[in-house]
């Protein structure tokens, strides 16, 4: 296996909106910038496959800016360990590469939160963003019956996207009640851009049943999902479907931040005014510092990029934008809080940890996350607790422990190569 070394003044991990903004701003300072991502192309999840889509103004202009910048794009490449301070070990099809940096900017984004319910492990039950990502990668959804469920603004965007690709969206089930959504809508009303986005979505979603205070109680089917049971406080009914797209808002990807020693607060990376973490020289921008959406991620990315390149006066120009976007972040958190009924969906037989097939009944008997890992192997499979971790935190109040290397499974040869390099 090849073993190479590269070094950068500023290394950015994650090529979503925050990472792209950070890399573009850092290169303006004339420093050597590297941008690593585990996807083949920059854009992250939200701008996946949007390079040619001129409707998405932000995406096209930022991707163009990145392409004409001097930032070196290292993709697809996955970071899996920190062999020593100032260095990250990565793998790609070319083998292991050790990346050294003077400043590091973590823009590792977020993933969907999944919650277990009977039948959620059936094929064709996917994340909301998950199904959207697969459609963006070329899957044909035309004519398929889809139920979109869970929580968060992503549900509407996903439903609109699937419908634009010909899907028959049978229902959108948002667990948050109308009362909280209306308050959220009022908060949006003070923001011209967000409200126009919301109206545009509403137009695209006309005649689709949108239900607030509604959640999936179960999914049924033999070899794949055939129907879902939807529930409100008043009634329960079945909806036939070919796909269930279900995700409960977002959780931050903080594994790498934990690994390099950044302090977390309430599950998010703590940063100062210049987006610098508790570790000097390591910055963080976007969803890992607080779920706040696209505009906040871009503002934080710009601040981190300029600050990491030593241009703090330029970074300060974006403080105002970040402050106003953070209000949206607070409104999001309040609006899409998870309802207690979601804790009561699993039966003893419902699988919670999909990697190790650990059932709810066994987990319920455990006193802690640590005990659950030791006794049941919950969270010990290849996803390393990324899927079941946020679920058990919601179900049992167990907090994830610190991340351990490798933060992604790697071939034994890669570990050996890192060891030899030391």
């Amino acid at each position, binding site marked *: 296996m090849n073993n190479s070394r590269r070094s950068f003044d500023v290394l950015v991990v994650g090529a979503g909106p925050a990472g792209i903004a950070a890399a573009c701003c850092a290169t303006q300072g004339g420093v050597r910038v590297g941008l690593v991502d*585990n*996807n*083949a192309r920059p854009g992250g*999840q939200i701008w996946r*496959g949007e390079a040619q889509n001129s409707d998405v103004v932000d995406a096209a202009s930022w991707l163009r800016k990145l392409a004409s910048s001097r930032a070196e794009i290292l993709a*697809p490449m996955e970071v899996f360990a920190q062999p020593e301070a100032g260095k990250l070990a990565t793998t790609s099809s070319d083998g292991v590469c050790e990346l050294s940096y003077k400043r590091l900017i973590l823009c590792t984004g977020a*993933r*969907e939160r*999944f919650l277990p319910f009977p039948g959620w*492990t*059936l*094929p*064709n*039950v*996917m*994340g909301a*963003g*998950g*199904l*959207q*990502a*697969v459609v963006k*990668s*070329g*899957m*044909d959804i035309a004519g398929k019956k889809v139920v979109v469920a869970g929580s968060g603004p992503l549900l509407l965007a996903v439903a609109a996207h699937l419908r634009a690709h010909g899907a028959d969206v049978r229902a959108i089930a948002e667990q948050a009640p109308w009362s909280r959504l209306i308050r959220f809508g009022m908060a949006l009303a003070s923001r011209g851009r967000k409200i126009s986005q919301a109206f545009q979505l509403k137009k695209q979603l006309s005649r689709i049943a949108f239900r607030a205070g509604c959640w999936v109680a179960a999914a049924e089917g033999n*070899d*794949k999902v055939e129907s879902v049971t939807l529930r409100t406080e008043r009634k329960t009914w079945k909806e036939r479907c070919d796909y269930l797209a279900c995700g409960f808002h977002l959780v931050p990807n903080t594994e790498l931040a934990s690994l390099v020693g950044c302090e977390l607060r309430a599950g998010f990376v703590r940063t100062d005014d210049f987006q610098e973490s508790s570790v000097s020289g390591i910055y963080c921008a976007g969803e890992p510092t607080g779920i706040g959406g696209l505009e906040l991620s871009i503002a934080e990315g710009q601040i981190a990029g300029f600050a990491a390149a030593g241009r703090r006066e330029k970074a300060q120009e974006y403080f105002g934008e970040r402050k106003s976007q953070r209000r949206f972040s607070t409104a999001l958190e309040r609006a899409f809080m998870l309802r207690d009924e979601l804790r009561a969906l699993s039966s003893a037989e419902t*699988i919670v940890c*999909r*990697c*190790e*097939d650990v059932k709810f009944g066994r987990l319920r008997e455990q006193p802690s996350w640590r005990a659950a890992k030791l006794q049941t192997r919950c969270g010990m*499979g*290849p*996803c390393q607790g*990324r*899927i079941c971790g946020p679920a058990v935190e919601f179900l049992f109040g167990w907090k994830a422990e610190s991340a351990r290397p490798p933060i992604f*499974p790697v071939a034994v040869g890669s570990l050996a190569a890192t060891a030899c390099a030391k």
Partner: protein
Amino acid sequence: MPKAVSVTVNGAQVDATEDMTALVAILLSGTTALRRSVSGEPRGALCGMGVCFECGVTINGERHCRSCQIRCAQEMDIRTDE
């Protein structure tokens, strides 16, 4: 237009394009179960972004490849976990 490529899924030929992921090629072949879980349940893709490992298949002989993250290439041999 993305370049057309021919891949095989469990031995059957599938016409795909270079910008499709291996996962999409598998779904095109009509297969919904990508792997069997440790207790034998059929599983399909969940997160679509390389985090959950539910879409792990064997690609060109290498096991546990996340099919949602890998793009199709000419003569790629994809095998779901029977």
